[in-house]
């Protein structure tokens, strides 16, 4: 594997699936005022955020996605929202690009098959649970 001039790391799906991703960070969304929904007379905050994962070694595969906390059936569940963002371009057996859209779709399916939720949940609880600190504003 190497980094192409366009910034992508090209791998085929078999190689990608053989790589163990490591959690890098997770954070709550930067909204100071979280959207509120009402349920059964109670005011419930909608909790959303993002998470970043990386492969060990070089070149690094970098993947991030948004998540939200869904409640139902008496339990709390983290779920992926939207596409996976990455520097990965998947290629076919002839080393041709599958394209950004197809790669993202396949990466989403791969992520959904991983057990990432509990890692994110613990990280978020550790990061925000004790002091209630919130993320800062957005600009770069």
């Amino acid at each position: 594997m190497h980094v192409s001039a366009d910034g992508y790391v090209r791998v085929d799906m078999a190689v990608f699936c053989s790589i163990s991703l490591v959690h890098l960070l997770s954070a709550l969304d930067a909204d100071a005022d979280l959207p509120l929904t009402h349920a059964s007379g109670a005011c419930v905050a909608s909790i959303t955020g993002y998470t970043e994962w990386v492969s060990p070694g070089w070149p690094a595969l970098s993947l991030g996605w948004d998540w939200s906390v869904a409640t139902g059936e008496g339990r709390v569940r983290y779920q992926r929202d939207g596409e996976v963002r990455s520097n990965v371009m998947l290629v076919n057996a002839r080393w041709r690009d599958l394209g950004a859209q197809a790669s993202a779709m396949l990466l989403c399916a791969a992520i959904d098959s991983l057990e990432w939720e509990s890692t994110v949940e613990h990280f978020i609880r550790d990061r925000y649970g004790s002091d209630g600190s919130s993320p800062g504003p957005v600009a770069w």
Partner: protein
Amino acid sequence: MRVITGAAAGLPEGCYGRVTSYRQRVFVERLGWRLQVRDGCETDQFDRLDTVYVLVEDDAGNITGCTRLLPTTQPYLLAEVFPQLLNGLLPPRDAVVWELSRFAAMDFNRRAATPLAQFSHSATALLMRAAIACAAERGAQRLITVSPVGIERLIRRLGLHAHRAGPPMIIDGQWIFACWIEV
């Protein structure tokens, strides 16, 4: 709202000073970045004669957003300060690649409900599109930018194709990464 673009010497009188003052308010006062400030203005070594500025003004003439474009054929922020964000790739030096930096869309006359809303207001989309058009006029086919993690999805929300150049890294206490944007 109106868009103004050009090198410092080509901007309307007093405009460059207002841009650097606006940057001081956003990046130093509001975001707490440790940047060089002189006489209430934030500037660095990349504010040069060939630096191109893009700014958005409201109807009253207040700046509500600004950014700057640097050709990668000359020294630029990512190559000089944050090359480690490129995942081992040598920093691009190519006439078709321009760097977008000091991007801010913050209306000090309007209280946004959330920081995300500040980013999402119309000046942001207008500024980003104007910056891309401005870069394209100068031959850019791709932009590269250093930004906090989280910006990539906001860029995508504007309907742009963007992808990261490598994993985020923690620098000066902030997670940042490099991001490619197709023009």
